[in-house]
C-alpha cells in the first residue's frame, strides 16, 4: 500500500519565479503536504485531541445549565473557555477546521489511489525475477519426469485458481508470475470512501434534522407535529426553520409503569394512537404500543417515550358555586420515589376586572407522593408506583404575577409576589383523593385524583439510514482490508539438461514467494502451497505425498 504513496517532496528553493508560478508551487506543495500519509496521521491525532474537551467539559448541546454553572464557578477561566468555544466543541471553529482538513486530505489521498487502483487492476503481475532463490520464501525441486514443461505448467496452473497470473517463456523455461490479495486494496478503498460518505451524510443530517420535546397528559390528549409552538422545547438543524415539519398526530391514551418490589422500574409503556399521511385526511387512528427502545416511526419522524410523571387533578368550588378543574403535570423531584412538586393555578371564573382578579387567583402547590408516608408531618414517597397517593399542599391566594411579563415556571409560583405581599398563603392541607379543604373565603379545594403524563421526544433525521449504510460499508471494507494479505508467488519450470525435452530427463520446479504487506504468516501458506504445486508438477494428486508440517503462523 505504502508503495504507491510518494514520499513527501521537499522541494529545493527554486531560483526566481514569477508570482503566479510561486503561487502554483505553493498550492502544489500545500496539496502534497496535506495529502501525505504523515499529515493524515497528525490530523487524526489532532481530531482525537480536539474531541477530548467535549468529553470532559459540560457541553451546551447536552446540558446548558451545567455549562452556565461551570462558567460561574470558574471565573475568568470559564469565560475564556467559553470564548474559545470549549463548551460547544463539535460546532467550534477549530474542531470544524480539523475535520475539514482531514476531509480534504482524505479526498486528496483517495483520488490518486483510486486511479492507481484502477491502473493496477489492468496491469499484469510483474515479470518473474531471475533468481528466485533470493526471495524470502523459496523452494527448488528436481525430479525424473517424462512430462513436457508445458504439461507440468498446465498442472501447476490448475492449482493456482484465484491467483492473478501471467506466463512467460524464456529459453525453454516457462515461468508463472502470480499474485493474490488485491482485494485488500478494494477493502481499503471501500473503507475510506465509506468514511467519506459517512462524514457527508452526518453533516447533511445535522443540517436538516430537528428534534423537539413535549409533555402530554396520558388521558387521551393529543399532540400534533404541526408547528414549533406545540413543543415545550425544539432544536432545529441549520436549514430548518420549523415551517415544514412532517405532519402527524399522536393521542396518548394511557401510561403504565411496572416496578419491582424495591421500586426499580421494570418497564414503561403507553398505548397511543397515531395518524399521518392519508390517515390525517380520513381521520383514521392507528394503535401503537409505545415503550422504551421502541419509538413510533411515522412520517419519517420518530416519537420516543422519554419520561413520565404525575399530574394531580384538583377541583375548586368558588364561594359563588362555580366549579373549575385543574390538571397539569407536576415534576418528579426524585425519580426513584416519584415524589413530585408542582403548582396548579386557577383564575376565578367570570372575573374580568384585573384589579379584582389579582386578589382572587389561587395556586395549589406542594408535594405529591404516589405512595405517601408522613414523617413528622412531612410528606415523602416510599415507592414510585401509585399505591397510596397523597398531596401535601400550600395554597396561595392573591396575585400570581402572571401579567408581569416574565415567563413563569409552570411548576412553581413567583416568589417575588410572595415577598411583596401580593400573594398570601391561605391554607395548608394534606389530602388523599376525594378529600377537600376549605379556604378562609369559603372556596373549597378538592384533590380529585391523579393522572399520568408522558414526555415525548420527536426526532427527525433524514440521513441516518445513509449513515448506517456507510458505517456498515466501512466495517466491511475494514475487515477485508485487515484480513486479506497481498502476496506473490512465482513458479519456474524447466528441464535439465536444458535440451532434453522428452524421455529420460529431469524436471526442475522453482517456486518463490513474497508477502507484500507487513502481515507475516505467509511462510505457512507458502509451505503448504508449494508442496501442493510440487505434487501437481509431479503428477500426483495433491495431498498424496506427506505434506511437510509448517510451523505455526505468526
Amino acid at each position, binding site marked *: 500500500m*505504502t508503495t504507491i504513496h510518494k*514520499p513527501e517532496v521537499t522541494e529545493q528553493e527554486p531560483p526566481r519565479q514569477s508570482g503566479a508560478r510561486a503561487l502554483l508551487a505553493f498550492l502544489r506543495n500545500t496539496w502534497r503536504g496535506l495529502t501525505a*500519509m*504523515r499529515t493524515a*496521521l497528525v490530523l487524526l491525532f489532532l481530531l*482525537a485531541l480536539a*474531541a477530548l474537551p*467535549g*468529553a*470532559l467539559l459540560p*457541553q451546551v*448541546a*447536552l446540558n446548558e445549565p451545567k455549562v452556565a454553572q461551570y462558567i460561574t464557578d470558574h471565573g475568568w477561566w470559564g469565560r475564556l473557555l467559553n470564548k474559545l468555544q470549549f463548551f460547544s466543541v463539535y460546532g467550534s471553529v477549530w474542531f470544524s477546521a480539523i475535520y475539514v482538513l482531514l476531509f480534504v486530505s482524505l479526498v486528496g489521498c483517495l483520488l490518486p489511489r483510486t486511479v492507481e487502483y484502477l491502473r493496477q487492476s489492468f496491469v499484469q503481475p510483474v515479470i518473474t525475477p531471475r533468481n528466485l532463490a533470493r526471495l*524470502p*520464501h*523459496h*523452494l*527448488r*525441486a*528436481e*525430479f*525424473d*519426469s517424462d512430462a513436457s514443461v508445458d504439461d507440468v505448467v498446465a498442472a501447476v496452473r490448475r492449482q493456482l485458481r484465484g491467483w492473478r497470473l501471467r506466463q512467460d517463456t524464456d529459453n525453454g523455461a516457462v515461468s508463472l508470475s502470480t499474485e493474490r490479495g488485491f482485494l485488500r486494496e478494494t477493502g481499503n478503498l471501500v473503507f475510506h470512501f465509506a468514511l467519506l460518505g459517512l462524514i457527508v451524510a452526518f453533516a447533511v443530517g445535522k443540517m436538516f434534522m430537528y*428534534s423537539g420535546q413535549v409533555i402530554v397528559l396520558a388521558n387521551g390528549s393529543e399532540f400534533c407535529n404541526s408547528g414549533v409552538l406545540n413543543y415545550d422545547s425544539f432544536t432545529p438543524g441549520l436549514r430548518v426553520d420549523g415551517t415544514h415539519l412532517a405532519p402527524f398526530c399522536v393521542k396518548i391514551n394511557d401510561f403504565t409503569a411496572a416496578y*419491582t*418490589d424495591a421500586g*426499580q422500574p421494570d*418497564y414503561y409503556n403507553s398505548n397511543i394512537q397515531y395518524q399521518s399521511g392519508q390517515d390525517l385526511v380520513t381521520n383514521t387512528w392507528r394503535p401503537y404500543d409505545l*415503550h*422504551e*427502545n421502541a419509538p413510533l416511526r411515522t412520517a419519517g419522524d*420518530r416519537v*420516543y417515550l422519554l419520561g413520565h410523571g404525575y399530574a394531580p387533578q384538583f377541583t375548586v368550588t368558588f364561594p359563588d358555586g362555580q366549579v373549575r378543574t385543574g390538571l397539569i403535570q407536576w415534576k418528579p423531584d426524585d425519580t426513584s420515589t416519584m415524589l413530585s412538586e408542582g403548582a396548579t393555578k386557577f383564575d376565578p371564573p367570570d372575573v374580568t376586572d384585573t384589579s379584582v382578579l389579582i386578589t382572587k387567583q389561587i395556586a395549589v402547590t406542594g408535594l405529591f407522593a404516589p405512595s405517601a408516608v408522613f414523617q413528622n408531618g412531612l410528606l415523602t414517597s416510599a415507592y414510585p408506583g401509585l399505591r397510596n397517593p397523597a398531596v401535601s399542599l400550600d395554597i396561595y391566594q392573591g396575585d400570581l404575577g402572571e401579567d408581569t411579563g416574565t415567563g413563569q415556571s409552570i411548576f412553581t409560583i413567583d416568589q417575588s409576589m410572595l415577598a411583596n405581599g401580593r400573594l398570601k398563603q391561605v391554607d395548608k392541607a394534606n389530602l388523599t383523593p376525594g378529600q377537600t379543604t376549605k379556604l378562609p373565603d369559603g372556596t373549597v379545594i378538592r384533590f380529585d385524583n391523579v393522572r399520568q403524563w408522558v414526555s415525548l421526544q420527536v*426526532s427527525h*433525521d433524514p440521513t441516518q439510514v445513509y*449513515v*448506517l449504510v456507510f458505517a456498515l460499508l466501512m*466495517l466491511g471494507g475494514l475487515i477485508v482490508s*485487515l*484480513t486479506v494479505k497481498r502476496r506473490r508467488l512465482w513458479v519456474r519450470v524447466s528441464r535439465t539438461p536444458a535440451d532434453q525435452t522428452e524421455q529420460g530427463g529431469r524436471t526442475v520446479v522453482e517456486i518463490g514467494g513474497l508477502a507484500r504487506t*507487513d*502481515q507475516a504468516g505467509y*511462510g*505457512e501458506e*507458502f*509451505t503448504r502451497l*508449494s*508442496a501442493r504445486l*510440487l505434487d501437481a508438477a*509431479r503428477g*500426483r494428486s495433491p495431498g498424496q*505425498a*506427506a*505434506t*511437510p508440517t*509448517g*510451523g*505455526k*503462523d*505468526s
Partner: protein
Amino acid sequence: MPVDEMLAHNSQYAYTAAVTIYVISMFFYLAESAFGRKAITAAKAVAEPAKALVGTDGATVTGTTVGPDPDAPVNAGVRGNRPLAERLGRMAVALTVLGATVHLLSIALRGLAVHRWPLGNMYEFMSFVCLVAVGAWLILLQRFQIRRLGAFVLIPVFILMFLGGTVLYTQAEPVQPALQSYWLVIHVTVVSTACGVLLVPGVASVLYLIKGAHERNSAMFMRLGPKLPTQATLDRLAYRTTIFGFPLFTFGVICGAIWAESAWGRFWGWDPKETTAFIAWVVYAAYLHSRATAGWRGNRAAIINVLGFAVMVFNLFFINLVTTGLHSYAGVG
C-alpha cells in the same frame, strides 16, 4: 423478578477465587522467568519444508522459508524430562485456565442471579473485560511463544479486577427499562470484548517499549529486558491482535449507535462516553496508519497503541466517574 441472593453470593465467591487464582498463577509465571535464564530462542528461521517427499522419481528438494514462525511455541521435550522453568510455566498456564473457568462461572452465576445478561454495571463490565483479556491471551498463547508474558497480562487484569471488586462494586440488581434491549446486549458485549482483546496489544506495546529501551541501553530494565521476546515478536503480537480487536470495536460502536437511535432519539450525540469511544477509535486508526507511515513504525506505533488502550480503559470505566452523561448507568454513586 427478584435477585437470587444465594446465586449472587456464590458469584461473588467465584470472583474472589478467580482473582486469587490469577495472582497465584502470576507468581508461577514470574517464577518461570526467574528460573529460566533467557527466553528460549525458537527453532531458527531456516527449515527444510519438503523433506518428507516420497516417490520413485528421485526427487530432491531444497528450500528456505521464513517459517516455521520463530515465535511459535516450541513443543518442549518429552514428559518428565522438562526443566524446572518449563514445569513452572506449564503450571502457570494450567492455573490461568482454572482461574478463567472460575471467572466465567462467576459471571454466569451473576447473570442467573439477576435474570439478565450480566453486563449491566461497571463491576460487571470490568469482570467481563478481564475474562476476555485472559481468554484472548490464552488463545494467542497457542500461536506465539509468549508464555513468559503471562504475568504482564495478569497484572493489569488483577488491578482492574481488584478495583472492580472493591471501589466499583455494585450489588446485583436489575437494570432500568432503557437498558432492556437486545441491541444493548450486543453492544456492550461486543465493546467489552473488544476492550478485553485490546488489552493484550496494549501490554505487548508497553513491553515493546521496555524491550527497546533495554536494547538501546542495557542498563535499563536490566532484569526484565533480556527475558522479553524480541521486539519483532511483540510488535507482531500487538498488530495481529489489534487488527482483530479494532473491527470488533468498530462493530460494537455501530451497535451502540443503533441502540442509541432507538432508545434516546439519536444515533450519535457526543455524549462523553460516545466522544471517548470516538477518540479511542481515531487513536487506533492512527495506530494502523502509523504502521504504514515511514518514520512512525516501531516506537511511535507502540506508543499510539498504548494510548489507544488507555483511552479504552478510561472510557469503559472512568468516564462514568468523572462526567455524567446518558451512559451514566454504571450503577456507581
